[in-house]
């Protein structure tokens, strides 16, 4: 599942629930539609309400990163927790994609303990 908003040409996509091979199919399609319809300079994945993510989620992020790079769009990941961060760090995608613990709705991390 996803919810999204566009603010000042920044597309923030909140991935909610379990992100696996089954759920990424529709998510990928929706993001690609939004990227086509809207004028975007940055895409931020918000994982603050993601209950589970496996390598299919990594593939989703990596695939959007490749596509966005070609279009000159920056990609970042926000709102990671211990679980999602473990999968992300293992893959090494954090070497070229900025990953932060803060939610895109709470950019300064004021609500993070």
């Amino acid at each position, binding site marked *: 599942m996803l919810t999204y908003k566009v603010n000042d040409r920044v597309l923030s996509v909140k991935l909610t629930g379990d992100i696996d*091979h089954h759920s990424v199919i529709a998510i*990928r399609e929706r993001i690609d539609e939004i990227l086509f319809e809207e004028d975007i300079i940055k895409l931020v994945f918000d994982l603050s309400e993601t209950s*589970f993510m*496996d*390598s299919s989620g990594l593939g989703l992020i990596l695939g959007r990163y490749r596509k966005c790079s070609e279009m000159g769009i920056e990609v970042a990941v926000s709102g990671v927790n211990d679980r999602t961060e473990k*999968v992300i760090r293992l893959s090494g995608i954090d070497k070229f994609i900025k990953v932060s613990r803060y939610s895109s709705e709470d950019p300064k991390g004021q609500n993070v303990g």
Partner: protein
Amino acid sequence: VKKDRKVLNEARIRFKGISANEAFARICVSGFVISAVGALGRTLTAEELADIKTSVSEAVTNSVVHGYRDSKGDVSMTMRLFSDGELYISITDKGCGIEDVSKAREPLYTTDPMNDRCGMGFSIMESFMTRLTVTSAPGKGTKVVMTKKLSLEEEDK
């Protein structure tokens, strides 16, 4: 493996190899391991449970995406908890099998990059579980066996 260890609990399930059952397999393994460990008056850490769910999700996704890419069939999952705290999980399909298992286990190797497969499935299973064994016969199917030594912490009173 010590000779005197016993099987404390065991469950087997068989389900259709379709993507909707990736979540079902995660729910099954969570239910099994939480109740089997709970019956001992012990508990799992959140990290252990997440590691197990993620590894099962990877193995079942492999069966659905790769094993059954040109055919349809079931996935079988066997779960066992041993008295020495080892969790055993096997996931078997009767799909197309893997030609070169050691190649498939290499990080970032995938036969399907166009569909955003990132080639991290086996690396995640290897890293999140204690041991991983993959046996496969082209045209016959694949069996993935994973074990994890659980910490079996005392439950908070």
